[in-house]
């Protein structure tokens, strides 16, 4: 067989491209099936890490990723994760969002059974770097101010930044971002208070 003459034949082209495509797709199939479990595990670990980040250490001993309930909030389903210790419900975790200076700010918060915040983290935002991004724990520990606060403590009218006569600090040059986060957390607490029955109802696994 002479490769040089064969290469220019019309039939050679589909054969070659077909074989290459076959080999490539087979290789992909193999790798994909080999990596699928590892990828799923890694992604689950991500979620768990971010959730446990807002929970005080040792509070939960269950796999709260599996113990979830979807609650309707203003027409949208909010997934609430439930943390238990010894089967006893200790805290719930859910995401809230509020419009900030530029775009939505996503906040993950953990609330204990008494409606007290256990932890707040900003998951995602597009605020002005250098000004509004102090809501990230990486940049500033401002979000830790929320720990232990509940709807009645401070009083509802004090759930605001200092500029609006509240108790929370604002940042120099940026009031809108902290204002939005405060509003989001307050809203989350109100949501919890209103739907406590639904949230705690239903047994976990």
């Amino acid at each position, binding site marked *: 067989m002479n490769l040089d003459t064969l290469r220019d034949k019309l039939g050679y082209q589909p054969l070659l491209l077909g074989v290459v495509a076959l080999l490539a797709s087979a290789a992909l199939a193999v790798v994909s099936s080999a990596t699928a479990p590892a990828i799923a595990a890694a992604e689950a670990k991500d979620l768990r890490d971010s959730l446990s980040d807002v929970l005080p250490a040792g509070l939960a001993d269950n796999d709260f990723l599996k113990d979830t309930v979807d609650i309707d909030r203003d027409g949208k389903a909010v997934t609430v994760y439930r943390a238990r210790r010894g089967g006893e419900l200790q805290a719930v975790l859910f995401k809230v969002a509020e*419009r900030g*200076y*530029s775009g939505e700010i996503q906040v993950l918060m953990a609330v204990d059974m008494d409606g007290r915040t256990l932890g707040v983290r900003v998951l995602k935002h597009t605020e*002005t*770097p*250098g*000004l509004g991004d102090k809501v990230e724990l990486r940049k500033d520990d401002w979000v830790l101010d929320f720990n232990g606060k509940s709807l009645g403590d401070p009083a509802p009218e004090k759930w605001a930044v200092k500029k609006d006569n509240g108790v929370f600090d604002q940042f*120099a*040059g940026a*009031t*809108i971002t902290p*204002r939005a986060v405060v509003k989001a957390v307050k809203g989350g607490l109100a949501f919890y208070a209103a739907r406590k029955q639904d949230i705690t109802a239903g047994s976990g696994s």
Partner: protein
Amino acid sequence: MNPVSLTAQTVASPHAHGGNSVSRTMFRVQLALAPATLYGFWLYGWPAFFLWALTILSCVGFEALSLKLAGVPRIKGTLLDGSAVLTGWLLAMTLPPWAPWWVAVLGGFIAIVIGKQVFGGLGQNVFNPAMVARVALLVSFPLPLTLWVLPLPMSALATPDFVGSLRIFLGSLPVPDAVTSATLLGHAKTELSRGVDLAAALHAGPGLSWIGMRAGSFGESAAILILCGGLYLLITRVISWHAPLGVLAGVAIPAAIAHGVDPGRFLSPEAHLLSGALMLGAFFIATDYVTSPNTTTGQLIFGLGVGLLTWVIRSFGAYPEGVAFAVLLMNAMTPVIDRFCKPRILGRDRKGKPIDIPENA
């Protein structure tokens, strides 16, 4: 040049000159800026003066350095044409009056080296160097670049003395909270974002802005003085009316329409015209020779574009002020405008074909 060498080389006509020169033009623009600048010194005290002086010094220094690195033979002559001074001056006018020293130095570097010399020096830059520096500083250092102080005559605090001013300028003394304030545009944006109606948020109209009694950049304050400077440039024919009018109309027309429809959401045209860098932008930035179109029609379109974009950015964008961004965006459009706004050649139609010869002639 001595006469002998002049006769030695072959030159074409004309053998006369109107007498206009780059340095004369630059000098006139500086003269037009002087009243607003001096008033700015009075409003904001020594720190503003330090800022102004250092920004200009930094621009001239970086210009000299760049020319030396580029191996330009006539450094002194090129420095004396006044363009670097003017760039520094304009940049200083748009900075917060009590900005620290490093803002001035870094601004000079960005304006001259990155905004101008990298493109090949005077006449070659695509973007207005002062605006490049302004935007780069604002994006990079949002905190010091949005720290506005109230004009001293208005604030409760005593005017800082020379040494105190120097310490503020060098950054060793923090700017007291009592003198900081939001600009009108910034205030409006903040209030809108928390859902407060503009009618409730703005107690006083923008009237005081005519004489600069508001927080804002050092040189943008007194709209009336800027306007006078602009009129002086118009009368001495350093600039033509097209670009300034375009900018003012480009802001005022959409502002008037939107304000008429929803006064609670949109600022009035008067507030737009008198706030921020609009007056300065209209008369001193949008008329920059190098980065604006060559033809008067093109300048009108350019101005309208700057105005419209400014209004859009102020009303819908993330930043409260948009003149600098609008100018840069339109700078990028300048070659396109120039391409489509060529003057009609005498004896030709717009497409360059010779006009028809009338049959009855």
